[in-house]
């Protein structure tokens, strides 16, 4: 890999600029879609149909005073928001984004792609717990504790369901998984995909599992004390994680950038947007669960189902697909 290519990957695609563009897009998109369900208009006057709203929001937050509370741990409070987006953006190099880069493989073409994805996504909540811990605010701390509880319970079904394509195709290479996928295997993987998407809602703290930043209960969870630039960085990390996890879902279960007639990044993007619409629709119509209800749901339903799903995949591999 030449230095020029490496710089392009880091700065333009699928690195910084792409992720920023995605952040702008998804923030605007979710606000607009949610407003549509609310029978409102949403951002409208800033930019064409309000499309520049996020841009102004982020510029404003960057120029605001960045407060470090007196009682907070200044190092933890300010360093974690820099680390979080970096960790959140790392899985980007594993995912095959487009046929144009690296012959269609991910930038880092490894045989442990699934493992890498799952581990890098799983580190994130722990860092967010540290932000809550470092804020030294009761509500932030409660948010941090909740995110740990949520991580421990949600990651089991998340890992197990992410394993199902690897088990079916006998490889952990994301490129191979993507190209082994057929209509038949997509159907076989469908239960796994549903479990993955439910667990994904928990990992991304989306309703009905948005327990860690429950506004009405604990103000804003671990975000409570963050202002200005630090808040932008944390939000950037959150949206990057949304992108990475939904891209992982698409790559693992729905054939990544492969599409009808032609293979392109836009197919991947289209599928991600479909998942985003699903997430917003769930957000707009369902109230939040209680923490203990969520734990009960994951341990007594989702995790056993994910294990059963592995049994089903093994069965399908032996008798339907054929080894």
């Amino acid at each position, binding site marked *: 890999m030449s230095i020029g290519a490496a710089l392009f990957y880091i700065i333009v695609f699928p690195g910084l600029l792409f992720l920023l563009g995605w952040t702008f897009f998804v923030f605007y998109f979710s606000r607009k879609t949610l407003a549509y369900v609310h029978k409102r208009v949403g951002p409208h006057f800033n930019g064409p149909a309000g499309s520049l709203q996020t841009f102004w929001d982020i510029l404003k937050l960057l120029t605001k005073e960045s407060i470090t509370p007196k009682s907070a741990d200044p190092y933890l409070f300010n360093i974690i928001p820099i680390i979080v987006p970096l960790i959140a953006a790392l899985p980007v190099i594993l995912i095959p984004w487009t046929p144009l880069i690296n012959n269609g493989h991910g930038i880092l073409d490894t045989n442990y792609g699934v493992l890498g994805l799952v581990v890098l996504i799983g580190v994130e909540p722990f860092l967010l717990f540290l932000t809550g811990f470092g804020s030294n605010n*009761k509500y932030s701390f409660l948010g941090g504790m909740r995110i740990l509880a949520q991580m421990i319970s949600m990651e089991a079904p998340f890992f197990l369901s992410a394993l199902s394509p690897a088990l079916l195709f006998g490889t952990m290479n994301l490129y191979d998984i993507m190209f082994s996928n057929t209509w038949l295997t997509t159907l076989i993987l469908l239960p796994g995909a549903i479990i993955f998407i439910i667990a994904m809602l928990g990992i991304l703290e989306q309703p009905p599992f948005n327990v860690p930043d429950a506004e009405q209960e604990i103000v804003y969870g671990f975000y409570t004390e963050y202002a200005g630039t630090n808040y932008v960085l944390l939000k950037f990390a959150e949206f990057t994680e949304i992108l990475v996890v939904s891209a992982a879902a698409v790559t693992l279960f729905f054939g990544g950038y492969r599409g009808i007639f032609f293979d392109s990044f836009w197919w991947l993007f289209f599928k991600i947007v479909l998942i985003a619409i699903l997430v917003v629709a769930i957000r707009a*119509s369902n109230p939040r669960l*209680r923490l203990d209800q969520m734990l009960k749901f994951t341990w007594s339903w989702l995790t056993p189902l994910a294990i059963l799903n592995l049994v089903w995949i093994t069965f399908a591999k032996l008798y339907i697909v054929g080894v």
Partner: protein
Amino acid sequence: MDRIKEVLNKFDMEYVEDYKSTWIKAKLKNKNDLLKVIESLKEVGVKTCSTVSPTDFIDENRIEVNYFLEDLFNKKNVWLKVDVDRDLEKCEIDSITPLMPSADWHELESFSTFGVKFKGHPNLRYFLISSDYYGKFPFRKDFDWEAHEQNLIENINSISDEFFEDYEKNEKTIGHEESKTVLNWGPTHPASGPIRLKVFINGENVEKIDADIGYVWRALENLVERKDFVGSIVAVERICFMDNPNPMICYSQAVEEIAGKEITPFAKYMRVILGEVGRIASHLISAGSFFGTMGLQTFLMWNLDIREYFLDVLEDYSGARIATASIEPGGVRYPLNDYKAWFETIQKAIDKFESVKADIDDIFIKNPLMSSRAKGNGIFTLNDVEEYYLAGPIARASGAKIDVRIDEPYAAYGELNINYVTCENGDARDRLYIIYKEIMQSIDLIKQAMKKIEEGIESGEMNPTKDHLIRMPRRMPAGEAVSRVEWARGEMLMHLVTTDKSTSPYRLKMRAPSVNHTMVLNKLISGKTLSDIPLLYGSMHICQGDLDR
């Protein structure tokens, strides 16, 4: 009724007489008999204290304490008066809280504002008033307000000091070894509104809730004493803007009763329509924010959309959206020049609600996640209703058949077809369902009243441009009256006292239901988890405006 009279006559009374259809008015001579009277009243079924209302007669050097005691299920009520001495040292009376827990906060309020000491109250403390009024009893007629206003900044600093003292004490005494702490749930909290709940938690579990109220205390009861009888509606309607017309109806009835005037049938029906529109506007927000407490704003937004159409009705009539000032003593304020156009606006609002109703049923009312959180959560039994006097929708959700519109019909409710709307379980979900059912009931009532007005106008019995207001005297005779209405949040009781040839009320006690609903929060939420606080708090439909007044 006779049994109650019998019981009362056993004691040394100045008088025992009937008052309205459901009340017995009595005055106790000796204040030391109070506990015995209450005890024997409890035996005949009068188990609930609606409110405690002291009146300061400074010329006669006495404070008259009024107890409004109710038998909720048999609709037999007792209005008991006792005199106490006005001097601060001798101004004390036995507390009835150990016998009737529903009197708890009402007694605290009387103590804080009038300085009546309640002997034997479990936790007598200053309450509601801000700390600069401690020991000064602002509702007494001889309170020197001008002098108190002089050092504003010092007063406010004393309030801050009190808060920080409390904070330091909690931080020092509460658990560094265990996972216990105190959360200030409000007043700067996304879901709280201006109230501060001190939540003692152990991890995620709530151990105790201590409500600190008074953040929107406007001393309305005192404010009306400086306004004339019509001007007072401005203060009265501001008790809570969510349901605006009903408090004005309550106040106007009390004034009309003292003046001895009867309003026209047209005005009565107008009061029904305005009152029900206000109730719907309030219920829509209540139901919406019930879901809002669980992080789902869609229902609130849809409801706000519908509510705008009902506010259009009020705006078309009075020119204001929520501060309508549309009802005054003597009838309703404005003539109805084009009643057909106004009825069309009402019809539009009703159509709007009915067009969305199917979607609301499918998405929200039957929502399984909502049921999983709210069903069986925070149950009130009929016994709790009687003990703590839960009123209105909260009581009806538990199956209690209480509704002032039926029990003691006012305005034109006696001529309309109206039934009790109840649910059985009394859990948080039922408190949502009852709200939703009551919206339907209100729409039905509005339709009936519109029909009656139309018939009346066609037959020439009603004249919408002239009948709206009768002449009220500027000066009122001496007297006192009690008036009750069914407000959106429950029973509202107003106790009005006037002196001879007065131009402004001498004393107005407003009893609003949210006080009791906040009082039971500790019982309701203790032992639940942190996530239940907003849900159960939202399910009580508390408005801080009428909590503090």
